[in-house]
């Protein structure tokens, strides 16, 4: 192989390899007004934590069966709650982007939507249950969901039945559609909102420090 062909093959291979990960970023620059960004579609109807008048926001797209989302939920979100959300600086929105990484993620997403429609507080408990346990299968995720919800104030049987019947498929698909239009390619993906501008997209279970500093807090 002569030098020119070698350098050309290296450049081509490097470009393919880099593209594999650059595909996770839709916009390479510039802030976007929140009102004209796809993530604003139905945003206020989504589960959220924090003050409604918080100056910044983090809009998360996650899959309950995603190991990277699991890492974020267990290692980062607790400190984000303490340092950003409970301080009144940030509002955290949770949206589903069910790929699914594991097949049980689809049923879990439907159960989450059904639970949110019934009781938002129990929704957050169920979400934590999925990420804390994280050892589900397609066969046992809904039975275990029923068992967990049986100790709460919601209608566990009704929620599991709704998930099985597809009553909340539209809500799951709607979040997925918003994510796709926003350029989400993998999970977790976060959009950082400062005031009324979407200032950046963050991919992967990055630390609270990254979020806090990127939002200028």
């Amino acid at each position: 192989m002569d030098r020119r062909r070698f350098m050309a093959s290296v450049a081509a291979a490097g470009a393919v390899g880099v593209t594999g990960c650059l595909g996770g970023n839709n916009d390479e620059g510039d802030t976007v007004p929140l009102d004209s960004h796809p993530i604003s579609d139905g945003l206020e109807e989504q589960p959220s934590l924090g003050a409604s008048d918080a100056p910044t926001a983090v809009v998360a797209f996650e899959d309950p069966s995603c190991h990277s989302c699991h890492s974020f939920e267990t290692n980062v979100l607790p400190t984000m709650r303490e340092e950003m959300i409970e301080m009144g600086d940030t509002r955290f929105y949770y949206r589903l982007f069910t790929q699914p990484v594991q097949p049980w993620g689809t049923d879990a997403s439907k159960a989450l939507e059904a639970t949110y429609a019934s009781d938002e507080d129990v929704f957050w408990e169920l979400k934590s249950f999925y990420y804390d346990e994280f050892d589900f299968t397609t066969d046992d995720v809904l039975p275990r969901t029923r068992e967990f919800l049986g100790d709460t104030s919601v209608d566990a049987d009704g929620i599991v039945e709704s998930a099985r019947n597809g009553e909340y498929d539209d809500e799951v698909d709607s979040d997925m559609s918003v994510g796709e239009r926003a350029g989400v390619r993998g999970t977790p993906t976060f959009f950082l909102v400062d005031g009324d501008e979407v200032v950046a997209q963050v991919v992967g279970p990055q630390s609270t420090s990254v979020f806090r500093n990127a939002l200028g807090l």
Partner: protein
Amino acid sequence: MRLPTNTDDARLVARTVRLVNSSPAYAALSAVTGFVGLNLFVVSQNINLFINVVVSGTLALDARLAVLFGLYPFVGTAFTATEGVVLLVVAAFFGVNLSMLTYQLRENRVSLREGSGSAAGMALGVLGAGCAACGTAVLAGILSLFGAAGVLTLLPFNGLEFSLVALVLLALSVYWLADGMRGGEVRGCPVGY
């Protein structure tokens, strides 16, 4: 295709790498290229964040640096300890590989085997080491071409497999480069058989 099979091959690689990198210029090239590779792996997943927050925007310098350094293994949380170690080793091999390739390009013609191993190792290094999120579209798209998109859900190490394959390819590339110098000299010193 010759593969490393014994300790003599390992000694050959170690000696050749040491001889090439005994030159300050090639040592610097290894270090710089490895550092660039690490940055490429880390930043490639968050280009939007890098451009909008680290490079441009109105944040103070310390905030921008906190965001940038927070993306790295062992500083931030995006990589487990195992993923971080593999990422650093891949970056190091990336650097050593490039310096040895450069030496060969300057002194000899590079063979197809050596070139393809390096190219494949570098591409996999970026694809595997830089993909901290689940299910990036291009990876799934590439796999779907082979009817294997679902294989992502079967990976027991959540994509670390790609980094490990990159490491193997880069290590083989280093071996083939060293093998190509067998019996010759590097900077006046015999490489040996």
